[in-house]
């Protein structure tokens, strides 16, 4: 430490520090980010990390408890649970990614259209959104699965469709809120065309809240897809899916709790991590919230 006579220097240093240390100021965010990134790394590099083939059955190592050769134990078919969890992350995140892609795109289009139109067009669009919203996302996903059939891609589509409603609703309310802002009126006053106003002034202001919605709803997508698998109507059995693993271990929970417990812990960890990361991103990067700090 050196003493300086410049009174501004420490202030400047402090401000620089405050700007840099988001990871220090938000320890939970940092930990959650590491956990979430860890899951993503597991998903990407699953073949390199997993100690066993996730669908390799072994009669000699059935229901082995955690420890030893199988770090998290094995299930009733003798499949290594750790390997299945690592591969399961791949399916969970893949399904969530495509489900969110479908849900957010559909919601953005439907919500923006409903927010910008008036009269009977708005009425029709609102009734469409309402009808999607009327059913809980799990029920709607089950209905879509009933039409499409089972499979990883079908689960992604089903969960995606079930999320269009909530996305569309929030997008519409954001569009209404932004459209009533003065800068939209000011742009109209400048005789900027309506389409340009929508593209330049309205959409950029709803994309950010949409991004926050996505970080929140990723966990919902994972949860719904796991629930579908848990109910036995999601992905088909040998696939290493967390929901499926929890369901398979259900019957043995009294003497082999690791079979359901380990994928359950993995699921809970990922959901909590994603929720905290989503909150942190929202609080840190919203210019309005930043302005009040």
């Amino acid at each position: 430490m050196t003493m300086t006579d410049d009174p501004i220097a420490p202030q400047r240093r402090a401000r620089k520090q405050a700007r840099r240390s988001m990871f220090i100021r938000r320890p939970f965010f940092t930990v959650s980010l590491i956990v979430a990134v860890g899951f993503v790394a597991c998903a990407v590099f699953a073949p390199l990390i997993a100690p066993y083939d996730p669908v390799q059955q072994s009669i000699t190592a059935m229901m082995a408890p955690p420890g030893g050769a199988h770090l998290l134990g094995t299930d009733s078919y003798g499949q290594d649970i750790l390997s299945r969890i690592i591969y399961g992350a791949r399916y969970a995140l893949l399904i969530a990614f495509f489900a969110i892609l479908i849900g957010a795109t559909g919601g953005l289009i439907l919500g923006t259209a409903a927010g910008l139109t008036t009269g009977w067009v708005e009425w029709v669009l609102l009734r469409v959104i309402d009808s999607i919203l009327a059913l809980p996302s799990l029920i709607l996903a089950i209905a879509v699965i009933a039409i499409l059939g089972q499979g990883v891609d079908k689960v992604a589509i089903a969960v995606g469709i079930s999320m269009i409603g909530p996305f569309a609703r929030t997008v519409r309310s954001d569009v209404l809120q932004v459209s009533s802002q003065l800068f939209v009126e000011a742009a109209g006053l400048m005789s900027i065309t309506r389409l340009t106003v929508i593209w330049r002034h309205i959409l950029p202001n709803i994309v950010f809240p949409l991004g926050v919605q996505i970080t929140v709803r990723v966990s919902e997508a994972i949860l719904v897809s796991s629930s579908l698998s848990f109910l036995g109507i999601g992905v088909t059995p040998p696939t290493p899916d967390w929901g499926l693993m929890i369901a398979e271990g259900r019957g043995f929970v009294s003497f082999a709790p690791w079979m359901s417990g380990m994928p359950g812990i993995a699921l809970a960890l990922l959901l909590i991590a994603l929720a905290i990361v989503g909150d942190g991103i929202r609080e840190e990067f919203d210019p309005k919230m930043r302005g009040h700090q």
Partner: protein
Amino acid sequence: MIAAHDVAPAHLPDTTPPEPQVLFELVEVEKVFMVRKPGSLFGGAKVGLPALDGVRLKIRKGASVALVGESGSGKSTLLRVLLGLTRPTQGHALYQGRPIDQVRAEGPAFARQVAMIYQDARGSLNPRMTIAALIAEPLRHFRICPEADIPDRVHSLLARVGLPAEVADRYPAAMSGGQVRRVAIARALASEPTVLVADEAVSGLDVSTQAQLLNLLRRLQRDMALTLVFITHDLGVASYLCEEIAIMYLGRIVETGPTNAVLTAPAHPYARALRRAAPEFFAPISDPLPGEIPSPLDLPTGCRFSGRCDVAQADCHLSDPALVRLGGGASDRAAACFHPLLPDANTDLGHTTATHLKRDIHA
């Protein structure tokens, strides 16, 4: 210059020097909003709410006009009519002799000529655009200068409103209230307008910032020969910035004229009451105007000010006075009053001149 329409056009003064071009002309403008009848929960019974009622106003090129009035007097509606955002339900709102909404619909020419500074400057700036992008938007939209010159032009506009060049990369959220107003002014000036319309552009700021902005606006108005329409409820601001004043009460202009003359010797009792209500140094605040501003849904019969007027006479309650020129055709003052206060009648105001009211502001 503002002037009321004379009752008989034949009396219009023709001795005045060549009149500058009339930019805006409002002829008996009425704006009625349909609202649900108060007190009725169900049913669609609607009543008309006259926000503007028989407004006459002329704004000549190069003039600076202050619109003054209480909340709810129709200042903002009048502004929206001037900008072509609201179409009057009755009467004519003309820009260079043609209906404003028609001129606006024809293309960006009107939008380029008439720029607006909002009261909520921060709300009028897109929070997701940098200051440079915000100021560049009108430059690009109206093709003011070639693409390559835009950064230079942005910097010169920032310099003109007294902001350093480094704010160009900031977002509005990172700037103070006074700075944001400067940005709004720079943005309004970007289209090289001939008319600047400002809605309470300096209210809600601390006095030193207000003074800087007022000086800036006055300098800009003189340097660029702008026509300035300034909405305010601060008589001091009006007298500092504007040569002419129009005082509004319940949707009607009740007195117009040169600011100094009107504030020194108001002719309309309401103008006098406003003038008295303005606080002065070392003087107790005079008694406020009795009563509340009536609801525009339930206007009193006769003169709309008769219920609160201290010099009301019998005829005031019978018929509604129109804005007429005072003291013959040569006068540039007008009031909507049957019994205008004569200058020698206000002895109680004799010691106050408008120069007292003028703020001594040095940048």
